[in-house]
């Protein structure tokens, strides 16, 4: 029972970060119809920028997090401008290949710049866990969970309350109609990709200090992010949140009670099951007719 409680806490902590990862990916797919293979690399980029800020420039931890997120957005915007904008008319497959190429360039660029040795990011939180009854959790991870939740909430408000958010939602529903109604699709795409990238970089910046920073850290995370959005329904924002927590709990409980060997396989098996039974995911995005 104590073990189950601990797994529950761990699953929640894990799920929160997964949700953050999934939402950026699903947003980009929903609005732009782009499967973003650089998502994992932007995650790594966010982590490295935090490392650079804290360890190399000696900046404040929180300032470094914010800077890393902003730099991630800037990198995302330049990827959109350089690679995606010229490919707007291209088919979805070609765009995927370009993004895979970009991921290769980014990952090896990181390895070139930083070397392959994994780095730890110092953080201002105490290194001993908070203990409540049978359950323990690190203050840093609580902080990550809270910031993730705040980012998710802020993102919802952005979508719901701002002009750019409305433009994004309109494009999400139907790009042609949105364009007719005066939405500048080019700008919405840049903003969308920048925000999606910013969310990935923020996830990396938050999780970098929890785990470690290495050039290949984006690989597994990229795959996980796919799993999350497929679980929730590709292009569905609530789905990505639910999918993130679902994957977090499944991994944690299956890993704890069934087999740690297959821990990472459960997510993928779940996807194949979901796609076989319910191809549109748990929470399907609204279909576009036509």
């Amino acid at each position, binding site marked *: 029972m104590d073990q189950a409680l601990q797994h529950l806490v761990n699953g929640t902590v894990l799920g929160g970060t997964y949700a953050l990862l999934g939402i950026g990916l699903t947003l980009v797919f929903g609005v732009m119809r782009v499967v973003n293979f650089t998502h994992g690399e932007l995650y790594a980029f966010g982590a490295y920028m935090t490392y650079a800020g804290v360890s190399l420039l000696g900046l404040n931890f929180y300032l470094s997090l914010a800077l890393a997120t902003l730099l991630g957005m800037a990198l995302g915007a330049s990827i959109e401008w350089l690679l995606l904008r010229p490919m707007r008319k291209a088919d979805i497959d070609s765009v995927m290949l370009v993004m895979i190429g970009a991921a290769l360039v980014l990952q090896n660029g990181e390895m070139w710049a930083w070397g392959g040795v*994994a780095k730890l990011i110092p953080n201002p939180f105490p*290194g001993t866990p908070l203990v409540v009854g049978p359950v323990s959790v690190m203050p840093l991870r609580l902080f990550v969970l809270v910031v993730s939740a705040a980012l998710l909430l802020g993102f919802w408000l952005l979508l719901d309350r701002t002009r750019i958010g409305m433009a994004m939602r309109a494009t999400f529903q139907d790009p042609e109609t949105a364009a007719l109604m005066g939405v500048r699709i080019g700008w919405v795409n840049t903003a969308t990709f920048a925000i999606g990238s910013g969310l990935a970089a923020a996830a990396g910046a938050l999780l970098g200090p929890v785990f470690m920073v290495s050039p290949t*850290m984006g690989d597994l995370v990229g795959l996980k992010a796919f799993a999350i959005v497929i679980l929730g329904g590709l292009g569905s924002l609530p789905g990505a949140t639910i999918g993130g927590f679902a994957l977090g709990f499944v991994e944690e409980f299956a890993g704890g009670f069934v087999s740690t060997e297959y821990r990472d396989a459960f997510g993928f098996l779940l996807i194949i099951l979901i796609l076989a039974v319910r191809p549109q995911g748990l929470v399907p995005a609204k279909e576009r007719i036509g």
Partner: protein
Amino acid sequence: MMNRRTLLLAGLAMPALSRHGFAADPIRIGMTQPLTGAVAASGNYVANGAKIAVEVLNAAGGVLGRPIELVLEDNKSNPREAVAAAEKLVLRDKVPVLIGAWSSTFTLAIMPKLIEYKVPMIVETSSAARITTSGNPWVFRIAPTSEMEAVAFAELLGKFDPPIRKIDFLSVNNDFGRGAAEKFSAALGAKGIRIGRTETMTPEATDLAAQITALRQSDGDTVFLTTGVEQQTLALRQAVEQRLGKRIVTTGGSFPDQLLANPLPPGNTSYHILFYAPWFPERAPHPQIAERYTAEWNKKGWEFAGLTEGFRGYDAVLTVAVAIKLAGKPEAEAIRAALWKVKLAGVNGDISFAKEGPAGQESGQNKPNVSVVTLSEGKTGLL
């Protein structure tokens, strides 16, 4: 970082220079390591160790009056590329001897090619038993097997207080991790220590909470942790987070260097089985050699922690140089014959090869030294 790049450039320029007429043609030594991909960090350490060994040797006049040239090829952390790299080294660069290939699978992938091309290889890191027992007479291993490591560790059991009574394992799910769990169980089981559970993790996993929570359920007092540096660090930190409350011993010879600058909270001491402890070069079997290696490494400004792994490349090159000197000519068959006769002092200790594997096709296996380093609040000590 800057250093690394200049070195790469220097590495590029070197073959060009040598072609422009030194007195004697260089003797080429081939090396393949994972320089990119999942395990690149450690591969680059080993490659760096080899590079400084070549510099040291050349500064002392080379071998047989000729300079040594290290031809380094990336195996991109996968077996297919390991084979491609080995074939390039043997067939295009015509090297008479190879060093490689870090992971056991990369080494095993290259091994049939050694028989095919009749070229000996010094195995510097791989720990799988099968490498020296499968009957490949071209393989000479200076790295210890998991079994040797376990047996050597068993001799040090008396130094632990409170004593080790029951052990569990947290192992990376590969040859290295599974091999260590098996051999340590056998070696320590023979000493009357009880064996608990074994949890495994994929090499790229970062969240180990499920495994550690499961280990907490065991009544063992010590967990043997076998994986690369990165996961060692993650596991040590997450063990604190999940209140594992057991002694942790890492195996395999790598050291979680990041915990020096970012130490675990007070009261957490971890134990690390190393083959070279760069903090105490004076305690190495051959202090002068160890100090020279350490000094050259630090001169480059490379990461200090890399010393724990870089010595593998350093010792491998020293071994090859002695073998070429004994052979009297840089030819594969002669070097192979000479390797059986080498006796030299390396960073890790004396290097010589004993026969292992089926009669008539034995591989060479060196018997290395181990030491256990403790880490507590960012400070190291020797057990």
